């Protein structure tokens, strides 16, 4: 198993005059699951986006390392799922996953894609348009996309939003599996989910 490390050094983000957070130090290695907590507006999503490379930090740096060596484009090595992350409504769930697989250079054969959708209990509705999916089904599809290809770094921004009891059980499984092969960061406001991680970061405290 490869050893991955995620490092945040003196990380800070400012929007206008307001610092969302500043001087954040973080180091996570393979096997770690960090739960990020905090009130609305405390910067959970901002932190996730900074780590994903979707936002540039105002100060400090984020680095992903594999066996000690820095990875130049960490976006290629992460799975990302945000509750407000949009999906292409004109695609079916199957087409969405196939698109992701093709763009990322992952296996795009029917069996592999259907197996992934089946894992998230989406196989019966695989060929329905995403716009016909419920909130929970969209969230399951986001997770199916984020975890396809077993990325070493998994960033889940409030993935529990809209999930029912079986969806939450599935989410727990996903996180447990991730810690066996890489690093998981999981932002939530749900009390029962906040206890899942072995590490916790409270933002805005």
């Amino acid at each position, binding site marked *: 198993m490869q050893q991955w490390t995620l490092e945040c050094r003196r990380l800070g983000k400012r929007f206008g005059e307001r610092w969302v957070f500043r001087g954040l130090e973080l180091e996570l290695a393979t096997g770690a699951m960090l739960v990020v907590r905090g009130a609305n507006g405390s910067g959970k999503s901002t932190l996730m986006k900074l780590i994903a*490379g979707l936002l*540039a930090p105002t100060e400090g740096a984020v680095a992903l390392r594999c066996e000690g060596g820095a990875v130049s484009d960490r976006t290629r090595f992460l799975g990302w799922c945000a509750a*407000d992350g*949009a999906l292409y409504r004109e695609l079916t769930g199957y087409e969405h996953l196939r698109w992701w697989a093709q*763009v990322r250079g992952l296996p795009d054969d029917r069996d592999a894609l259907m197996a992934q959708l089946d894992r998230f209990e989406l196989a019966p509705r695989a060929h329905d348009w995403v716009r016909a999916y419920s909130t929970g089904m969209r969230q399951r599809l986001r997770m199916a996309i984020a975890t396809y290809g077993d990325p070493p770094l998994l960033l889940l921004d409030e993935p529990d939003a809209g999930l029912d009891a079986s969806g939450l059980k599935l989410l727990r499984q996903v996180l447990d599996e991730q810690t066996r092969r890489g690093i998981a960061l999981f932002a939530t406001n749900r009390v029962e989910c906040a206890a899942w991680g072995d590490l916790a970061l409270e933002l805005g405290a």
Partner: protein
Amino acid sequence: MGVATVVGVGFAALGQTLSAGLQAGLFWVAVLFGMFPALARGFIVEEETGTADLLRVAARPASVFWGKWLFHATLYLLLSGVLVPLYALLVAPIAGHGGAWLLLWLGGGFCLTSVLTLCGALVAQTTVRGALLAGLTFPLLLPLMLMLIAGSRQAIEGVFPAEPLQGVFGYALALSAGGAWVFEKVWRE
């Protein structure tokens, strides 16, 4: 918009003989007007529907740039398929030096596609899209339009437009080298 422009110009110029310069100018203005709505289909829709972040995580910036470029190039091809015959029918025949017209169409299409792709990406990330679009595209499109119109005028007159074509293809080279690089800098904040 391109079709409306050609039809409008066609009716306005009905029964008149247009000069070569005017014909060339109207042709490229119609193409430009037709291509502008493509801006919204490229990056602005991605930002407005929120799928831009998914795209940022999914693919390398260069892949996104050239993917959108191909989309705009396909639109240019389809638009030309409609506009060129309509223009020839309603305004003036595409006459003169055929080879020069083809090169101008190719070079002009490459440049228009590149400028619109790049400007679309820049504009999509702001909230003042209308004003910024005008401000950004004007300095990038003006020299291109002048070269294309000058070249087309010469082509209509049966002269091979060597200098305007050099300019257009030089511009295309600069855009292909710089476009993807600039895009990479702005795509991920």
